[in-house]
């Protein structure tokens, strides 16, 4: 099972550089999710790896092999497409079989693999149907099956769940994760859905504008976003970002909001000692607020409620703070008690704040 590495990848269309000197490498068995908004270059990167696009400059390696100039079928990978891309005139069996078209395998080996994939994905009863007679979820399984039969080390997924309804998406998400645990293969998965990324990935590369903003485990990405883009992109409701001024004196550091609220950030692991009076952007996760704090508190805001909304198991409440809304995650029963325009004291837990340099946007 191979590792995959991109070295100094540049891709340009004419004068437009989509990717510029991109480096990324994942280990054998990793589940890499390329996450980013539309047009950030994540699908381009996947297509470069698949060989469906040619790199302008740079090197792609799978395992020890340099595959930069290899044909797609010789790269030893399989891909699942967003629209499933099943062959409409072939049966499910024919679709799976054509996946092995390039391999010169004996017939019984081909049949054995098709039977194995069909059993694994529970599509055995569908083998003689055409894609037009299948539901979305079934087509998705067939598309995955077509990739599985190839028995390769690297699987590529291009937003495979975006055409499914919410319930099926959750089911398939689990199944893909299960498959990964079972097959121990390397997976590169493109999505713009942060929940898919957070739940399935072992590594996430957050991309924007053709640049990898942060590469790390889901926990790292969520807990310690490297810059403002990652901070605002990951999390729903999004992280609350506010401009503050740092006040550093002795061993104590405080972030002072425009309205004068002071937040204690002495325990923040600054990369380098902050300067007194430096401008910083504070990032506050909605779930790190508390209406009734039970632990040490970094700051307390007394703010009026704007509105609360319930999203199933939990609820979000929005408070007017300075000239913008502050999003909080609250328990549903607490949310029900909040009356509009009622001023409430909310506390932010100690040690949970994120600080970004206001000039560069990088984590401090």
């Amino acid at each position, binding site marked *: 099972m191979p590792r995959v590495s991109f070295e100094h990848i540049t891709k340009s269309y004419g004068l437009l550089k989509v990717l510029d000197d991109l480096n990324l490498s994942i280990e054998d068995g990793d589940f890499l999710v390329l996450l980013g908004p539309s047009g950030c270059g994540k699908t381009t990167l996947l*297509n470069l790896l*698949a*060989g*469906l696009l040619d790199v302008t400059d740079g090197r792609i390696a799978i395992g020890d092999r340099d595959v930069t100039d290899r*044909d*797609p*079928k*010789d790269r030893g*990978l*399989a*891909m699942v*497409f*967003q*629209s499933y*891309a*099943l*062959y*409409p*005139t*072939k049966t499910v069996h024919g679709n799976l079989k*054509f*996946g*092995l*078209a*390039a391999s010169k395998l004996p017939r019984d080996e081909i049949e054995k693999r098709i039977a194995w994939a069909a059993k694994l994905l529970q599509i055995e009863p569908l083998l003689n149907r055409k894609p037009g007679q299948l539901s979305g979820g079934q087509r998705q399984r067939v598309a995955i099956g*077509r990739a599985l039969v190839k028995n390769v080390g690297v699987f590529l997924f291009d937003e495979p769940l975006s055409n499914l309804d919410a319930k099926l998406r959750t089911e398939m998400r689990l199944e893909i994760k299960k498959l990964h645990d079972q097959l121990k293969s390397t997976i590169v998965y493109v999505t713009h859905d942060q929940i898919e990324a957070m739940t399935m990935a072992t590594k996430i590369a957050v991309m924007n504008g053709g640049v990898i903003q942060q590469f790390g485990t889901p926990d790292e990405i969520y807990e310690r976003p490297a810059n403002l883009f990652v901070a605002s992109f990951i999390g729903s409701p999004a992280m609350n970002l506010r401009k503050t001024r740092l006040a550093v004196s002795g061993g104590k550091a405080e972030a002072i909001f425009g309205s004068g609220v002071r937040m204690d950030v002495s325990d923040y692991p600054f990369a380098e000692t902050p300067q007194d009076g430096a401008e910083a952007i504070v990032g506050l996760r909605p779930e790190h607020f508390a209406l009734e704090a039970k632990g040490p508190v970094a700051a307390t805001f007394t703010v009026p409620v704007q509105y609360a909304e319930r999203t199933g198991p939990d609820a979000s409440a929005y408070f007017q703070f300075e000239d913008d809304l502050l999003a909080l995650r609250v328990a549903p029963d607490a949310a029900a008690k909040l009356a509009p325009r009622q001023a409430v004291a909310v506390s932010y837990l100690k040690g949970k704040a994120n600080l970004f340099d206001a000039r560069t946007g990088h984590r401090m």
Partner: protein
Amino acid sequence: MTELTIFRKALSPQASGAEVAVTSAPYFPRRKKRITGRSIAVLVFLAICALFFCIPLYVVIVTSFKTMYQIREGAMFALPNVWTLEAWDHAWNTACSGTRCEGLKVGFWNSVAILIPSLALSIGLSIVTGYALALWNVKWAGPFLFILFICAFVPFQIIMFPLISMTAALRVYGSIWGVAIIHSVLAMPVLVLIFRNYYKDIPQEIMSAAVMDSGSFWKIFFEIILPMSGNILIVVLILQITSIWNDYLIGVTFGGMGAQPMTVNLANLITISTGTVRYNDNMAAALLTAIPPLVIYFIVGKLFVQGITAGAIKG
């Protein structure tokens, strides 16, 4: 439309979410249409148009079943006194074209012999070219398509003489293959454009998947693309059969003496300078020549319409 069944989400709390069938009165009852002066005018116009085509056809058909004796009486619209297949038999078997008196059957079999290689060659060449231009990265595909497009507008008569010397140099002039090659070459521009536009609508991801699965130009063509081209093949088949069968100019120019198609045969048969004009033979011969494309229309006509609409929307 008399009744509409509407599914309405019940709003009552005890049945919330359940779908309840509601039978309601007709929504928009259609008023009975009255016959207006305008619709009468349209009907009359359409009837005249239909007669315009039907009357000559009627004359051709009844004349072909008459005896020469009755034709000389001059009652053009009268039905045959005696229905006879004599003229048909004569036209098919013994009518004279020049000095040969073997009837139309020679031309018929020549036409069939020309049709089959012409169809195979023209469709085969243009389907593969269209597939390559639409779905593979071909260098200079844009300029190539543009040139093809221009070629579609070049009248055949302009390039007739160079083509004659080219086929002569290839030693196919005057043979069935000469006619077939010219048919294929002349049909290429339009057919390539048709196939190329049809294949452009095939989702790119299917092609990407096929390239990753197999990567072979021909394997993808035969296993994936060709089975998806049924509709457009029928359209092109009918277009080509009609144009090749009905062609006169290419046949008369490139067929030489040995490979003259039925149309040329027919023309020779009816343009005689001596003796009486045998109208019944001529009509029967004309009908015989026109029948094959009609048969094709009737057999695949339904598929033809499906093919056209399938090409118009997405395939």
